[in-house]
């Protein structure tokens, strides 16, 4: 029985895969994987039944070839290897009369185009460039030129006796509807825009254009607005230079501007003011290239199709690769989500949340809570090229750093206290043998005193100075781990009283200049409150400590691959999530019922979700929202805030309209916050309660909110209470 179910599941997933390959090949024409849009495009290709049919046969041919030859399934599923074959099939299908011979030609052309796609992916892909629709152009040119000598192929009559075809299909009413559309009094440029959209599918049909425009709008507001901007800029440009282009010609060039505009303004670049600006500057190149290429190719009666779009987009994207400085203002899309909106919102969210992701997570170099006696740009010694350093001391509850009179180093609380490695690394340099100073008499000769330099990577070194002579617990060249005791605090070198000097530098030398480098996370202790600081710089007078993790939280948030989490809902149904790791080494929870995935990161101190994909009705989505970001120490009333990616949590209707202006202006916010509410015993806790919430804002106005109460016990997360728009939902372990 089990094997039967397994076989069924496998068959279903294969059907799904094939469906994805086919449908995404349609929507990929517009860089999309939006299923309704794919269906609409597919539908309009069937306005001419045989053209639609040959298009579908082409996609199927490419899909079967790809599966049989074993090409990358992810690339195939995204439709990336299929859309060029589809276009070739449509081009041939509309040109020739349907026949068995045409069927053979279409299958061959589809295969040929598919092979060009794969090869170009290898050749151009090496340079990080997309092959766009070059394969289809090459494939169709090759076949169209060759077919001139194929006598068995009759040129298709379709598109000539349209009214008769429509009459056959739907009688007078359909003919009337067609004529009504054709006689619609639309301004010429608007008609040309719709015709251009239809020309992408080799049609010259207002209805097709309108349907595609509607599909484009439903897929992406950014792509839709870009299509209009690009089209009309080129239109304006032609008028400006007085080019002799009929509106009919224009319709057949128009999609070059539409596709270029979407590609540069919103797809291969993150939609932004700068991306739009560059798109506007680049569109005239496409316009000029269209005229010049057309002048050459028309000599040979070869249509240029989307050649200008391909050339200009590749040219621009390739040029960007040579930038010496990365800029957030004009950023390429490094992980393609096939939606300008998703690309934008994920980019903005990542910029806010993970801009320091590639930074080495340097932490504080001591146990317990120390005080910053001198911070960056300090008034004593942290000046000039040495300004990015900290001095730490230990103080008692009255704020004093020593007992008695403080005349001897031993009277200082920090003296001889362990100093730890602030992050994993290798001991690069040790200076030892310098005596502690008498209080108030710094040793100006050996400025740094006893010093330890740890190499964390080729460009990040940490330096700990004024250490106690002979206290080193490590040797030069030795590997160290974060938290490992390396030496003790002392009073050597230019140190009037015991303290720990800590700086980050880019090179391994004792005298290297300091580098402005944030600490990955630490807790600021205020009078009655705590603050979690991430990627920040401790400030003067602050009392700071590393996060002291709570075993209860650490164990509840330790998700090990293969682990199963089960929760009972109020309806007594069971939701099951499995911890998994994908080929990119990303950990995620996968809901067995809905297939939804919630990706997370889990380090020593923090647990946070990065991304969610799948149905939002899944309980996993609540889990994702509730535990969006947590630190693993318990600090009473500590509050952490963060931002959700807008496309996941913001109300769809408002977001839909906001999408139009999102590349320039964000008026909306989806905020996460969590409070550490209750612990039953500070020393040996058995239960911790957290409350978290999601609040959506339009400007400063609250739009809606959700709240979550999470209870954690020794066996992990015991329950989550969810309040979503007055609806109460409960997940119980």
């Amino acid at each position, binding site marked *: 029985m089990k094997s039967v179910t397994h076989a069924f599941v496998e068959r279903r997933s294969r059907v799904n895969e094939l469906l994805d390959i086919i449908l995404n090949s349609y929507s990929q024409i517009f860089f999309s994987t939006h299923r309704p849009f794919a269906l609409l495009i597919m539908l309009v290709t069937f306005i001419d039944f045989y053209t639609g049919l040959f298009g579908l046969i082409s996609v199927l041919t490419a899909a079967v070839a790809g599966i049989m030859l074993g090409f990358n399934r992810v690339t195939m599923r995204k439709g990336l290897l299929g859309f060029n074959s589809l276009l070739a099939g449509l081009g041939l299908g509309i040109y020739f009369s349907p026949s068995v011979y045409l069927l053979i030609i279409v299958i061959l052309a589809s295969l040929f185009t598919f092979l060009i796609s794969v090869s170009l992916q290898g050749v151009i892909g090496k340079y990080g460039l997309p092959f766009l629709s070059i394969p289809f152009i090459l494939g169709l040119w090759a076949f169209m030129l060759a077919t001139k000598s194929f006598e068995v192929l009759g*040129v*298709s009559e379709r598109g*000539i*006796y349209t*009214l*008769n075809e429509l009459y056959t299909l739907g009688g007078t009413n359909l003919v009337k509807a067609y004529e009504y559309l054709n006689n619609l009094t639309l301004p010429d440029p608007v008609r040309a825009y719709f015709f251009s959209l239809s020309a992408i599918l080799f049609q010259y049909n207002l209805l097709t254009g309108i349907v595609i425009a509607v599909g484009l709008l439903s897929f992406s507001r950014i792509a839709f607005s870009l299509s209009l901007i690009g089209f009309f800029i080129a239109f304006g440009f032609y008028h400006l230079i007085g080019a002799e282009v009929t509106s009919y010609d224009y319709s057949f060039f128009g999609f070059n501007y539409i596709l270029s505009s979407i590609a540069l303004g919103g797809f291969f670049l993150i939609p932004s003011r700068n991306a739009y600006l560059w798109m506007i500057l680049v569109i005239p190149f496409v316009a000029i290239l269209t005229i010049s290429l057309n002048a050459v190719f*028309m000599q040979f*009666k070869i249509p240029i199709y989307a050649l200008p779009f391909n050339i200009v987009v590749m040219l621009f994207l390739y040029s960007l690769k040579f930038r010496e400085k990365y800029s957030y203002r004009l950023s390429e899309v490094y992980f393609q989500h096939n939606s300008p909106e998703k690309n934008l919102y994920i980019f903005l969210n990542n910029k806010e949340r993970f801009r320091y992701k590639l930074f080495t997570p340097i932490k504080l170099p001591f146990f317990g809570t120390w005080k910053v006696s001198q911070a960056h740009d300090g008034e004593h010694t942290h000046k000039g090229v040495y300004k990015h350093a900290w001095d730490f001391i230990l103080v008692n509850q009255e704020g004093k750093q020593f007992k008695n009179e403080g005349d001897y180093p031993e009277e200082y609380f920090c003296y001889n206290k362990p100093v730890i490695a602030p992050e994993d690394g290798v001991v690069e340099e040790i200076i030892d043998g310098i005596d502690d100073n008498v209080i108030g008499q710094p040793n100006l000769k050996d400025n740094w005193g006893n010093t330890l330099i740890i190499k964390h990577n080729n460009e990040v070194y940490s330096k700990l100075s004024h250490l106690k002579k002979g206290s080193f617990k490590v040797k030069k060249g030795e590997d160290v781990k974060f938290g490992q005791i390396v030496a003790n605090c002392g009073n050597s070198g230019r140190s009037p009283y015991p303290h720990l000097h800590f700086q980050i530098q880019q090179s391994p030398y004792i005298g290297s200049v300091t580098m402005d480098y944030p600490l990955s996370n630490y807790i600021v202790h205020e009078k009655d409150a705590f603050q979690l600081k991430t990627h920040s710089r401790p400030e003067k007078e602050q009392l700071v400590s590393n996060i002291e993790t709570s075993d209860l939280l650490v164990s509840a948030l330790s998700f090990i691959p293969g682990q199963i989490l089960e929760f009972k809902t109020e309806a007594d149904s069971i939701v099951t999530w499995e911890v998994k790791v994908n080929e990119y080494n990303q950990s995620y929870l996968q809901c067995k019922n809905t297939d939804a995935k919630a990706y997370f990161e889990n380090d020593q101190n923090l647990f946070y979700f990065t991304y969610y994909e799948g149905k939002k009705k899944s309980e996993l989505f609540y889990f994702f929202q509730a535990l969006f970001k947590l630190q693993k120490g318990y600090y009473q009333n500590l509050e952490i805030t963060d931002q959700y990616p807008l496309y996941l949590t913001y109300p769809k209707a408002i977001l839909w309209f906001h999408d139009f202006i999102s590349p320039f202006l964000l008026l909306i916010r989806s905020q996460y916050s969590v409070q550490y509410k209750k612990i039953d015993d500070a020393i040996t806790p058995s239960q911790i309660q957290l409350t978290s919430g999601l609040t959506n804002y339009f400007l400063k106005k609250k739009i809606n909110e959700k709240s979550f109460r999470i209870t954690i016990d020794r066996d992990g997360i015991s329950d989550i209470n969810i309040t979503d728009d007055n609806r109460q939902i409960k997940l119980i372990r």
Partner: protein
Amino acid sequence: METLKKISLIVLLGFFSTIVYAQQNTEKKIIEGFQNSYLHEASGNLAEAILDLKNVYQADSYPINLRLGWLTYSSGMFSESQSYYNKAVALKPYAVEPRMGLVLPLAAMGNWDAVIAQYHKVLEIMPNYSVALHRLGLIYYGQKDYEKAEKYFEKVVNLYPFDYDGLVMLAWTEFHLKKYRQAKVLFNTALMHTPTGASALEGLKLMQ
């Protein structure tokens, strides 16, 4: 009293019969006028032909205005022709006949906008009238507005798929629109109709 009644009846009868007679007489004259004008037209004497009808002219007569429109047009009196045709149009506004006449003097005077407007009116009344469709197509073709020309020729060809003129004109239009596939099919079909059709042969040669 009885006598008075009888007299009144006789007078009334007499009055009506006089009217009927007069009317019969006028119609007879008008028909004769038409008869003469046809004879004069056939013999090439257009001035006499016009006069024949002017002699029996009635402003509210559709036939007279229509025929005078034609005769004056034929003798080069375009303004007059236009005015007669306009009267005919006004008398029978739903009729396409006077409008198809009216376009003649309008075209002769080069008033193309008015010609186009008349054809549109004709097509509004009779959407599938192939003559109007074809002529509108020709006007737009002459103005090099191939996109518009295509719309009308396409309809002609859909209504008369094997008519040489329609096929050739649509073929040339498609040729200018760079729709070579369609042009090729259309020229070839035109050659099936007239295998020696010079225009179709020339078109195909250009596309080789």
